């Protein structure tokens, strides 16, 4: 038997070849991010074209879109950590309902002051997460089963507490978090009257949007420069700028839309703070690093001194806490607690994570991509409703999109 492979490139040193491989890897990693961002732009564009009078980008619709999808983003941040650490949480939808029910009963029936209720509900969410976390991390029960149990238990408890009824309405202050807007200096009569009618918009929102976009640009360039200075492999500058330009256009576009309507929603500020916090935790902190190591290889992590049980436990406490926050947001937005609140939210949240490229086998996933994944789902839900697609067809489309996104991921991985 004879085997022969002829050289194509013979003179290159092995190392420079490996460097090229590393660069190709970097390119491939980034390609996924670009693809995700590109797809988001595409469907935004699609619905812009297809909806009547471009209703999809109308200020009122964009404001609604933010409020409607806030719960997905909030919980996706927790779900990201749960999935990255190699688990899953199916109970979050039921926790949303359950926490909403507690809030309703406590505020409407027991007449407790809402700030105390908010605090108590978030603590309660964390407690539920802790209870499930103990079973998963220390009793070593599979997360799928524990949270499947939780899903049933808390949905049932929600129904029992509310006796199948709507409970509401809530005081103004409680609703403010979900439906309110940040006070804007351009609302001050003196300033308002000063401006010609065409410029009577919510300037604060626009200014914050522009500043945010600029800050992002500056930060990205600084990071890139430092990477270059350390002779690390950095993505091509042109692409980096393009990516950030797209982000900037989205941010400024949204803030422009918001400025044309009622200004900056309170919930958007809360989300922005949470997203930045979790982006920081996942990329820059010791605990974040350990969660990724735990999901990447639990045995190696444990032998490196990572307390894997405690870390798994904490991811579930965190998930419960965020589900509690989402529960409050949903109740406040609907201005009532309902037995069906949060139904099947877990699916939206998990789907957002997977569309955002989180690996189902753990260890891989980025906060920004999950946010984009959540936005993707949100834009689709909203757009399909606007064009009057039936609710059942919407489910079919969402399912197909999820499959397509993960197919692309898996295909890319196998090809490499």
């Amino acid at each position: 038997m004879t085997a022969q492979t002829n050289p194509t490139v013979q003179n290159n040193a092995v190392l420079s070849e490996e460097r090229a491989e590393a660069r190709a890897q970097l390119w491939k990693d980034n390609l996924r991010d670009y693809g995700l961002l590109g797809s988001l732009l595409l469907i935004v564009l699609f619905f812009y074209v297809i909806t009547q009078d471009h209703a999809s980008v109308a200020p009122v619709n964009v404001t609604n879109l933010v409020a409607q999808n806030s719960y997905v983003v909030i919980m996706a941040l927790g779900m990201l950590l749960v999935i990255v650490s190699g688990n899953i949480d199916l109970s979050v939808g039921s926790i949303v309902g359950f926490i909403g029910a507690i809030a309703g009963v406590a505020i409407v029936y027991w007449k407790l002051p809402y700030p105390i209720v908010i605090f108590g509900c978030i603590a309660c969410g964390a407690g539920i997460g802790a209870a499930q976390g103990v079973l998963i991390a220390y009793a070593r029960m599979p997360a799928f089963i524990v949270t499947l149990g939780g899903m049933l238990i808390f949905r049932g408890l929600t129904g029992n507490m509310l006796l199948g009824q709507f409970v509401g309405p809530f005081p103004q202050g409680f609703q403010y978090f979900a439906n309110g807007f940040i006070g804007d200096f351009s609302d001050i009569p003196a300033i308002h009257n000063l401006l010609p009618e065409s410029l009577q918009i919510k300037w604060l929102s626009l200014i914050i949007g522009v500043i945010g976009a600029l800050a992002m640009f500056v930060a990205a360039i600084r990071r890139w420069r430092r990477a270059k200075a350390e002779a690390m492999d950095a993505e091509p500058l042109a692409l980096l700028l393009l990516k950030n330009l797209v982000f900037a256009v989205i941010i400024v576009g949204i803030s422009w839309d918001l400025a044309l309507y009622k200004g900056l929603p309170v919930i958007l500020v809360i989300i922005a703070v949470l997203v930045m916090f979790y982006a920081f935790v996942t990329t820059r902190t010791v605990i974040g690093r350990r969660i990724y190591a735990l999901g990447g290889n639990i045995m190696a992590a444990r032998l490196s001194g990572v307390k894997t049980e405690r870390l798994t436990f904490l991811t579930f406490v965190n998930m419960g806490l965020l589900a509690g926050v989402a529960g409050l947001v949903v109740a406040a937005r609907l201005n009532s607690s309902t037995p069906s609140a949060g139904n099947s939210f877990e699916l939206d949240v998990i789907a957002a994570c997977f569309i955002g490229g989180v690996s189902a086998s753990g260890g891989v996933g980025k906060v920004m991509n999950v946010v984009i994944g959540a936005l993707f789902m949100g834009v689709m839900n909203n757009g399909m409703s606007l064009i009057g697609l039936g609710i059942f067809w919407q489910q079919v489309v969402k399912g197909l999109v999820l499959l397509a996104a993960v197919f692309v991921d898996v295909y890319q991985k196998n090809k490499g």
Partner: protein
Amino acid sequence: MALRDVNLAVEEGEIHAICGENGAGKSTLMKVLSGVYAHGSYEGDIIYKGEERKFATIGDSEHVGIIIIHQELALAPLLSIAENIFLGNETAKHGVIDWTEAYKRAKELLLKVGLKESPSTLVTNLGVGKQQLVEIAKALSKEVQLLILDEPTASLNEADSAALLNLLVGFKSQGLTSILISHKLNELARVADKITVLRDGSTVETINCHAEPISESRIIKSMVGREMTERYPSRSVEIGEELFRIEDWRVRHPIHTGREVVKGVNLHVRRGEVVGIAGLMGAGRTELAMSVFGRAYGRDITGKATLNGRTLDLSTIQKAIDSGLAYVTEDRKTLGLVLIEEIKTNITLANLRGVSKHGVIDDAREASVAQRYRTALRIRTPSIHQRALNLSGGNQQKVVLSKWLFAEPQVLILDEPTRGIDVGAKYEIYGIINDLASQGKGVIVISSEMPELLGVCDRIYVMNEGRFVDEMPAKEASQEKIMASIMRQYGVQA
């Protein structure tokens, strides 16, 4: 590109060995030959039995009798031997399996490879050596004509290795052709008819073992492209006072709690000393090491551990690390590395405190730490951002070592530190061990390769069935002496 210019000619009925350093392209070549890499993904021709073959899948190559047995065994642990042998090749009619026939044939095949186990035994209950034999039985069931074995003896002890090699020699006399990839040069020198050496993806030469006398140094010279006079770097030994000691260490099996795996071991290491633990597979060496390292193995652990005379609390891994212990695992892929993560991330994992402040990681410092170890240990990679997955075995081992060096331990336990890595990288690892000792650290080396222990250690413990049965200065030790102390346990006079 893993291969650049390879010419390999294997004649019918011979054992053709292939060797080369890690990353030389051995495994890639075998994947090309067996259709794992489809025709079209490489340039060049494969000529088998006088015909050019274009394999698109493994199925194509198996169809003509080329079977490959991979380094990582591909058996389903919870299926029986018979089920494994006929997996994908079931003795079935219209999709219904004839189990009587399957067991009958499995029994015959097992007999051929010298296994007395019942075909209904679950594979998980077999040792690695026997699992390897099941793989061969599986290959035989497919009417193999060219058997390719990728490091079949890497995880076998000497007795099992010898049995396996004898089997190959036996099959050769029945006309079977084999290609054998191995790092164990003494084995190749013993059984191979020809040895082809690969280096950097190209063939260096093919040595005809019948035409010239073959020595290990002859092969090594060809592999590394230079004469390696010293297999073990020399060092100046300066042994200080006692550093680490364990007394009456006892460990029970985590599941079979009635079984004591480590039975009252006493061990001590001095500053600057390299201590070896010799023993057969299953002697309890890894179990001892892992139980000491923060109870990473076993239950009901008792015994006393002291460092510099102070009693240590080794109840968790974090405490063991904080106390100044490090354990470099024998299984770097599953226990040592987070393969999907960057080299940088892996290096700092055991000591994130060293690159962070108030729980926030300092990226620049982390990068410079990783860079430092990459240079110091000569990890061959274009960037510290390369994933561990993409490195060769020797470089992966260096990453694991970097991780533990950065944890700044006083005592390092190295479990099979050179398993499955090539001669050049081995030499470098020995150099690192020497450096550690000369810095005044205590090093404990567990190895199944006795020459390695004799080459790098100052003192050697011999472990068997959970006990230390002997202790000797390396100067006075020999392979025969170590084997003799093990065999004495069984009442055999060696």
